[in-house]
């Protein structure tokens, strides 16, 4: 990915380590602020999607004595950062916290102005981040505190080349920056499955009993409680939690309901497989129940035998090594978070996800009970709301293009920045739809990008829908609506490309139930383009089961 690295010290050596990405650098005293402030600077000219502002606190304070004058200058820097973020909403700005080593010789009676400066800077970037959705906090200070200044900094490199960090320090920083870039491109895992005995608590519930297992506020049992606290935080960030355990269900539920120090509750989990079936089978079933790929699952179990069994039978599941020393459980889990679930910002959609999967389980139960599929679909009381994307929708729309694999006709991935550009691209429209029913709000689940290809022809650049609402013919109803709108705008032909992937069989099934299509092109890779005459008829064959709410919009107006 293209990014820029701005700093008040020499960061070229850090940039060289980020080999997988194209990194533009601008560095030096005064240079970084000019680059930031000037819209015609090389930094913006390089077309970055992310700009990292990595500030060395010691250098920021260099040659200054008084706190007030320093604060005034810092405020100026902060203002430039905010202005830049405001002017370039399509670029993400990652601004570092600062570490200011106390370098002056000073008696114990004097105030430590370095601490004040660090706090002042942090307050400034936190405010900027709250005000601008494209400003993020890169916590360099935390990295320094975790690793230690003697490891992270190097005096010799500073005097030799203005390089503040040691080679080890540069590696840590480069890794963090790459993690941030990767998080924008690579889909994170969706689901965490956990064992129970000796994982969520110490001991074996079936043998030790409710009062015998280790789980407490303080002391040894706190290892597990702290671990559970981290897991709950992950759940709150929108990761689906599930249990896969060999146990008697009643014994396990006794802990969830009756143990006073249990942090996680039954409601925190979208699915539980507590039985004596092999875990590999349970995990495969659970992926199917939740309608997610096994490659989006992370499985944590203390037993090396179970881990090996899962790795062998389901190699796509991520199975981290369990820490030998359980005092490291919480620290281990922080690493799992960074490796598998790291995200820049959890959207409101993410946070609702576990609830959505629980609601799905209820819908599935109702489907089984309903006299017919039609009766079930009508009984759901589904409401679809369909509109052009607005700025607030962009993060979710980008996320949908990046994560949706199954019902996705073309599997084209878009960043927020690219979608923002499409909003103003002529003859192109980006739509988003959200879905709710009597069991709850499924949130924004469908994205479609329609491009006008010729005077009378439109093409579906993208048409995708999250698997959480699949099987309800919502996609059919939305396509039918799109067709009507296009027809009203004078278009008579719709092209529907299909690019097959390992996972998008549901998209193929969708195409196959449309009628009147003519195959206009196909190639060796299996990619096809279907064309539909929409002047009089709709390709959609399924009846509408939902109520559709739209704002009246001209889609792709015919130019005279």
């Amino acid at each position, binding site marked *: 990915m293209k990014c820029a690295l701005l700093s008040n010290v*020499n960061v*070229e*050596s850090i940039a*060289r*380590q980020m*080999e997988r990405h194209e990194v533009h650098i601008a560095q030096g005293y005064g240079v970084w602020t000019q680059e930031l402030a000037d819209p015609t600077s090389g930094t913006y000219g390089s077309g970055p999607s992310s700009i990292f502002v990595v500030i060395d606190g010691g250098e920021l304070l260099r040659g200054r004595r008084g706190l007030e004058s320093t604060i005034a200058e810092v405020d100026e820097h902060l203002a430039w950062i905010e202005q830049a973020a405001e002017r370039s909403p399509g670029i993400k700005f990652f601004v570092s916290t600062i570490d200011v080593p106390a370098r002056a010789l000073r008696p114990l009676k004097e105030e430590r102005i370095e601490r004040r400066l660090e706090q002042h800077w942090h307050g400034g970037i936190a405010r900027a981040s709250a005000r601008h959705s494209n400003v993020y906090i890169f916590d360099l200070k935390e990295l320094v505190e975790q690793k230690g200044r003697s490891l992270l900094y*190097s005096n*010799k*490199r500073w*005097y*030799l*080349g203005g*390089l503040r960090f*040691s*080679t*080890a320090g540069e590696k840590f920083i480069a890794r963090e920056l790459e993690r941030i870039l990767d998080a924008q491109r690579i889909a994170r895992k969706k689901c965490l499955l956990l064992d129970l005995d000796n994982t969520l608590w110490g001991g074996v519930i079936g043998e030790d009993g409710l009062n015998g297992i280790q789980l407490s506020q303080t002391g040894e049992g706190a290892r597990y409680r702290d671990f559970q606290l981290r897991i709950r935080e992950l759940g709150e960030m929108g990761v689906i939690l599930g249990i896969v355990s060999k146990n008697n269900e009643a014994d396990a539920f006794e802990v969830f309901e009756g143990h006073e120090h249990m942090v996680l509750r039954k409601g925190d989990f979208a699915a539980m497989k507590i039985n004596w079936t092999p875990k590999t089978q349970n995990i495969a079933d659970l992926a199917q129940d939740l309608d997610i790929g096994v490659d989006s699952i992370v499985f944590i179990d203390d037993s090396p035998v179970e881990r090996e069994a899962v790795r062998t039978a389901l190699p796509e599941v991520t199975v981290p090594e369990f820490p030998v020393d359980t005092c490291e459980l919480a620290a281990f889990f922080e690493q799992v978070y960074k490796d598998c679930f790291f995200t820049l910002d959890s959207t409101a959609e993410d946070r609702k996800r576990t609830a959505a999967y629980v609601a799905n389980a209820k819908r599935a139960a109702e489907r089984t009970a309903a006299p017919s599929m039609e009766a079930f679909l009508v009984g759901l009381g589904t409401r679809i709301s369909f509109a052009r994307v607005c700025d607030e929708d962009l993060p979710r729309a980008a996320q949908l293009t990046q994560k949706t694999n199954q019902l996705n006709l073309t599997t084209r991935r878009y960043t927020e920045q690219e979608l923002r550009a499409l909003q103003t691209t002529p003859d192109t429209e980006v739509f988003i739809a959200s879905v709710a029913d009597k069991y709850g709000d499924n949130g924004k689940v469908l994205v479609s990008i329609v491009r006008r290809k010729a005077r009378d022809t439109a093409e579906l650049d993208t048409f995708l829908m999250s698997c959480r609402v699949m099987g309800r013919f919502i996609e059919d109803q939305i396509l039918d609506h799109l067709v009507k709108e296009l027809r009203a705008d004078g278009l008579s032909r719709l092209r529907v490309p299909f690019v097959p992937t390992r996972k998008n069989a549901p998209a193929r099934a969708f195409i196959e139930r449309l009628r009147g299509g003519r195959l206009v092109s196909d190639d060796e890779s299996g990619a096809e383009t279907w064309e539909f005459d929409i002047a009089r008829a709709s390709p959609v064959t399924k009846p509408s089961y939902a109520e559709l709410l739209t704002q009246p919009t001209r889609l792709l107006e015919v130019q005279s």
Partner: protein
Amino acid sequence: MDERLIATVASALRVPTSTLTLETGPGDLPAWDSLAQINVVSEIESEFGVSIPIEQMAEIRHIRDFLGYLTKTP
């Protein structure tokens, strides 16, 4: 010792070991510029637990020249 030194230099320059011999020096490879030279010195210092004085850095013309610093320290 020679191999470990060459491997350390290669890792600092982010080039394959096969592109280096004891006679390679700063400026011989595009990757070995003045910034890379600082990284080479840093990596050797941390890998071998030695310290190379700033004053003597200019005298290092080939990888071989580092050997003197490595053997001096027990």
